[in-house]
């Protein structure tokens, strides 16, 4: 069945360098640096990435960072909590805009 998303496409990510190699190199170098052990551990960074992946709803990233989290030693309970963090921020971001709605209502209502 044809689909816009194909799991095997993730392995082709590097091919993005074909038309713009310099930009791709800078991006992938930067990407590698971001996920290296630093003030945050690789495990913590993978959990953040997993949460963000759910927030931006990227199936490639969800696949990749689910495995990465497991291989960095996180368990499913921790990963589920990370997804809830993404959900809370994403849901909260919608809800807090309700203040704008209320402001506008006040402005135009008698």
């Amino acid at each position, binding site marked *: 069945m044809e689909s816009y998303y194909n799991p095997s496409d993730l392995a082709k990510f590097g091919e993005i360098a074909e038309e713009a190699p310099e930009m791709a190199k800078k991006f992938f170098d930067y990407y590698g640096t971001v996920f290296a052990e630093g003030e945050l551990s*690789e*495990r913590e960074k993978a959990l953040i990435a997993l949460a963000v992946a759910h927030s931006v709803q990227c199936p490639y990233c969800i696949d990749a960072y689910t*495995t990465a989290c*497991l291989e*960095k*030693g996180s*368990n*499913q*309970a921790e990963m589920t909590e990370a997804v809830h963090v993404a959900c809370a921020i994403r849901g909260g971001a919608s809800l807090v805009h309700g203040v704008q709605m209320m402001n506008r209502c006040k402005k135009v209502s008698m």
Partner: protein
Amino acid sequence: MRSFQDTLHHHGLHLVREVTSTLQINTGFRCNLACKHCHLDAGPARQEVMTRATMEEVLSFVRRNSFKLADITGGAPELVPDIAYLLDGLSLQVERVLFRSNLTLLTRGEYAALLEQLVAGKVAIAASFPSTNKKQADAQRGSGVWESSVKALKELNRLGYGKAGTGLELFLVANPAGAFLPVEQSRAEQRYKSELAAKWGIAFTNLYTFANMPLGRFRAWLERSGNLQPYMAKLAAGFNPATVAGLMCRSLISVSWDGFLYDCDFNLAAGLYHSGRRLHLSEVDTIGKGIPIISADHCYGCTAGAGFT
């Protein structure tokens, strides 16, 4: 996927035996558990256990060689009737003895004499403890196993195992709970140490992390779950040529419950005999250097990433 032998050839590597300093003794496939990651398909229904006659042949083989370490594994070695005899014989002939335990039997009353023997002989214990998370561990090893393991570790600590200055070493062994690679060993050890100490007051000597081998019951699960091809591809893609020099098979020889020789316990599971011939240890005088190690695609499990030796 390129075969393991082709990959070695591509990197100009030769997998040959160095000085053999470890004898791994697989005392049989009988086990009270049937862990999903088991490469041997060990379990309660298996009847294969090492007899006293084979133990005598093992001890004679040990006398003809100069092993520094005897590594006793199974199945569950606790379930081997003459295990005390084997332990006694080995303790007299090798510098160190390592006893692998699944932690669910060793501290039970009926094994008190065996445990006493291990303590008295300062036999090191390597215990399976795949995850600090109960759900993950039980998913792999069976319901209730995690809790019995924690209880057993506390008891081993009480006897001095894993405590500095006692000479009683307690190693934990962690395998991933699925078709993914293990956590990098030193980081996993740090986390295990702090978490086990903080939550349950448990101490241990070192942690070893190993990849699950695509053999036995684990392979059957990989096939059933559609994970075999991607898992093999992941192991092969992670091939690290730097690991080959330090692979355990270069310095270890494995003997099965019935006395046949293999280059490692994984080759034993795969039925790949040492030197490519069905050799009983009674037919072999000493294990020499330079003998090619028999390899197959499951060997990618020991060469992925930082390697698992």
